[in-house]
């Protein structure tokens, strides 16, 4: 075969596979809407295109099969047949047949030796509009076998070539059929789905390799930009130029990333077929609801979540949704609902697979977990029901057959979690016994460029992905001796009253070597939450957060299993990207007694990630919450750092004036005590920054739903934090207050006296 032919064949394979994917989606949809002419048109087109092109390329087996299918579809399109279940089953088999031949052409460059006679005769049999069909809606085989009446000849004459099913040279079927199909299909699709039509005209097929290369080059450009920005930071003449470079680079990066985005419908589209096949073998009745198909995700990530999603769907059908009789007995609709939902939330995409099936028996999960030693009984009692549920992702547990049979889930749930976490995502499960189960995956939009914090250890830079980082604690040399505690040789830190296991990065990376004692240097504890493990990584320096371009490592370095890649920093240095999960695993060997607690701790962390995370603070004896995403940093400073503009407390913060809210009266209370320290939570509010004076910082916790509440002075809402109703600080209110529009009475008085 010449190069020209190769190119043609490749093109043909891609087109045909796309056509068949569309056909598969349409077929399952057709089952719901058997009268939809547009769907039928789409299916017909897919098969017709294959048939037309194969004649040209000389794939006889493919042509014969496609031809048989086309005849059947022709009748369907003309309304002479109805799309009932046996017919759709037959068409799905045709689809599989065509696919397997295409596959063989792709891999072996030949059509293979198979015999399609059985399938073709089935398709022919389906051409007879048999009366029995209505009576046999479930079993395809029966429908085919009983459809033995002779074909009405007038139907056959509708297709010029229909009388000879095994035709070798199609005379002119292409132009004959094309105009006929175009008229109705086009008119309808323009009204219903204009996207389908315009997509073909305005899109271009680009090799993924080219896109990858582009992504790489853009990554290079981002690095160069970072270096230019650093090098010219002090030169005012360059400011305009670098700013422009910065903008263009950002836009370009976005465009290239956009080019790699694909809608999740590429994966969701395959689900209806799986559902159809599984419901038939398992004897379930299931309605599939799909939402947010158009949500887009980076191609490589889409590939990575394909298996977890399929797995979750199988689980839902196999163990989640009960057989119709059982559902009826439980007073449910015999038809179960399986829901797939995708939606973008900030820089993440949320994918949910939910069912209204039997749910998971938390009791059994907990018992099993205790039995297996995954968790101590005492610890289990402290966990909320929801936290206990997440135990299902723990490897030893999920393979347990007891959990699988009784509560429904478990086969390979750890694999689902591993796959999702491998791409920086998070997964969690939510279930109500008897009511249903929801599996929720949180996937980052892209992998190639991630935000990271650059940390220093052993005079070397390392990148720590922000995704796993929950907070930073500074322990100066002078405090290290008291702040870092030890159980034997395991270092611990008391983080808001709870013990956090610590891992010293230098000791982990250079075991045995002499390292500076913690009390001889600055220590920064990066509190990490990875793979369900929470721990503090101790480094001796922090640099700026940076958007880093992930570069893969060679195999020999991947084998170390502590680095997930490398990157080039703004100062042109290379930095290894640390893998928090792997570090936790490695450190876990030395901290075995902490395992169970840590595991549970991690589940708490995973649970907290579900809702909005809040920083829990105490303001003058009252608890309040600040959305964590708005918190930039927490400053502890002497009271005399707070200055006043008129009555307004402000803070000179990194050269900028920061309005400080003191509606709790924390500053006022400390007034007069010159040695007093105050804590200011620095928050982002729109484009501005504001500070909130608080008495104590208590914790970070996930908050439940916001309930309606009467608004207090700076409280616009409340949240359920750790089972306590907690007021949420309204940052918008702070700015108004700071602008002097709602100054409290005593301050107004103060202004009067000043005036």
């Amino acid at each position, binding site marked *: 075969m010449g190069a020209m032919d190769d190119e043609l064949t490749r093109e043909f394979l891609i087109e045909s596979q796309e056509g068949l994917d569309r056909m598969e989606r349409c077929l399952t949809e057709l089952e719901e809407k058997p009268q939809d002419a547009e769907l039928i048109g789409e299916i017909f087109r897919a098969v017709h295109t294959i048939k037309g092109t194969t004649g040209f390329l000389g794939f006889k087996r493919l042509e014969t099969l496609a031809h048989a299918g086309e005849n059947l579809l022709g009748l369907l399109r003309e309304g002479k047949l109805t799309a009932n279940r046996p017919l759709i089953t037959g068409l799905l088999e045709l689809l599989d047949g065509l696919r397997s031949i295409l596959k063989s052409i792709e891999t072996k460059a030949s059509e293979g030796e198979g015999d399609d006679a059985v399938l073709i005769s089935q398709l022919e049999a389906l051409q007879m509009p048999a009366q029995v069909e209505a009576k046999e809606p479930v079993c395809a085989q029966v429908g085919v076998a009983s459809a033995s009446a002779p074909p009405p000849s007038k139907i056959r004459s509708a297709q010029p070539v229909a009388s000879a099913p095994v035709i070798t040279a199609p005379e002119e079927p292409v132009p004959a059929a094309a105009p006929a199909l175009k008229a109705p299909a086009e008119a309808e699709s323009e009204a219903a789905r204009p996207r389908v039509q315009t997509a073909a005209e305005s899109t271009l097929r680009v090799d993924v390799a080219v896109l990858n290369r582009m992504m*790489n*080059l853009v*990554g*290079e450009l981002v690095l160069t930009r970072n270096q230019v920005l650093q090098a010219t930071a002090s030169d005012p003449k360059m400011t305009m130029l670098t700013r422009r470079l910065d903008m263009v680079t950002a836009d370009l990066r976005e465009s290239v990333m956009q080019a790699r985005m694909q809608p999740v419908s590429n994966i969701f589209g395959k689900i209806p077929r799986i559902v159809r096949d599984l419901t038939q073998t398992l004897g379930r009745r299931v309605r599939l609801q799909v939402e947010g198909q158009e949500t887009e995700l980076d191609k490589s990530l889409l590939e990575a979540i394909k298996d977890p999603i399929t797995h979750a769907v199988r689980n839902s059908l196999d163990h989640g949704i009960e057989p119709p009789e059982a559902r009826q007995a439980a007073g449910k609709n015999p038809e179960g609902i399986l829901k797939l939902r995708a939606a973008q939330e900030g820089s993440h995409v949320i994918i949910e697979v939910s069912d209204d099936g039997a749910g998971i028996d938390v009791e059994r999960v907990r018992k099993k977990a205790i039995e297996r030693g995954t968790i101590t009984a005492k610890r289990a009692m402290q966990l909320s029901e929801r936290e206990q549920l997440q135990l299902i992702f723990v490897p030893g547990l999920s393979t347990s057959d007891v959990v699988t049979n009784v509560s429904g889930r478990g086969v390979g749930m750890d694999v689902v979690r591993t796959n999702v976490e491998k791409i920086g995502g998070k997964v969690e499960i939510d279930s109500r016994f008897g009511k249903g189960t929801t599996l929720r995956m949180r996937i980052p939009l892209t992998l190639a460029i991630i935000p990271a914090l650059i940390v220093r250890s*052993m005079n*070397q830079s390392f990148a720590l992905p922000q995704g796993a980082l929950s907070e930073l604690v500074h322990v100066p040399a002078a405090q290290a001796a008291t702040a870092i505690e030890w159980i034997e040789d395991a270092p611990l830190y008391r983080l808001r009253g709870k013990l956090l296991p610590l891992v010293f990065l230098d000791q982990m*990376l*250079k075991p045995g070597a002499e390292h500076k004692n913690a009390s001889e240097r600055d220590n920064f504890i990066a509190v990490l939450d990875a793979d369900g493990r929470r721990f503090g990584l101790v480094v001796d320096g922090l640099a700026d957060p940076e958007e880093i371009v992930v*570069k*893969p*490592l*060679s*195999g*020999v*370095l991947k*084998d*170390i299993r*502590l*680095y997930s*890649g*490398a*990157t*080039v920093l703004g100062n*042109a*240095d*290379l*930095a*290894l990207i640390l893998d928090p999960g792997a570090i936790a695993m490695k450190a876990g060997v030395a901290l075995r007694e902490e395992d169970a607690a840590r595991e549970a701790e991690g589940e708490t962390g995973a649970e907290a990630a579900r809702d909005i995370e809040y920083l829990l603070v105490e303001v003058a004896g009252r608890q309040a919450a600040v959305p964590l995403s708005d918190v930039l940093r927490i400053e502890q400073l002497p009271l005399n750092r707070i200055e006043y503009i008129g009555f307004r407390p402000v803070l000179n913060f990194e050269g900028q004036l920061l309005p400080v809210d003191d509606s709790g009266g924390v500053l006022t209370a400390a007034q007069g005590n010159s040695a007093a320290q105050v804590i200011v939570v620095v928050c982002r509010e729109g484009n501005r920054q504001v500070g909130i004076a608080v008495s104590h910082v208590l914790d970070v916790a996930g908050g439940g739903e916001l309930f309606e509440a009467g608004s207090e002075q700076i409280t616009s809402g409340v949240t359920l934090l750790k089972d306590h109703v907690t007021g949420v600080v309204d940052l918008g209110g702070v700015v108004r207050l700071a602008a002097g529009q709602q100054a409290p009475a005593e301050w107004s008085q103060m202004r009067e006296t000043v005036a």
Partner: protein
Amino acid sequence: MSTATVAVQGKEKAEAEMVEMCSVRLGKTLFGVPITHILEIVGSARPQPVPLAPDFVGGLIHYRGDVLTTVSLRQLLGLPAKEGLQNILVLESAGGCFGLLVDSVGEVLIVSSAEYELNPATLDERRKALFAGAYKLRGSLLIMLDPEKLDPMCLSASLA
């Protein structure tokens, strides 16, 4: 000097073939790398060390948008490591690209396959695995390095 012609591995050629070799030095020893395998010579780079990596890994360098693993020839031969800036040959092997840290890079030598000889039996095992024979030059020997054998993946397998 021996005048016996040695058949080039597997090839039954009577007449000698001319091969271009890039000469590099490590200490006093002269090594040769076939220029067909060299992508680029990077002078004075400072590889970033990789904690916990196998000893022969000389660190990472940034090369045209990729991060390359480098192999320290000194380390491989059991010589003390050299600090600071290094000369690096970027080599291509079946497994991908990698860097080779050497002391200095010399001129390209054109050698005749007629002057090639296999590793002597007296060489220690480790060196036998790394060297691919030698070319007899006037006054010195040019020890052949085979990029395939120096590939980090291959080394980690053979040294394991």
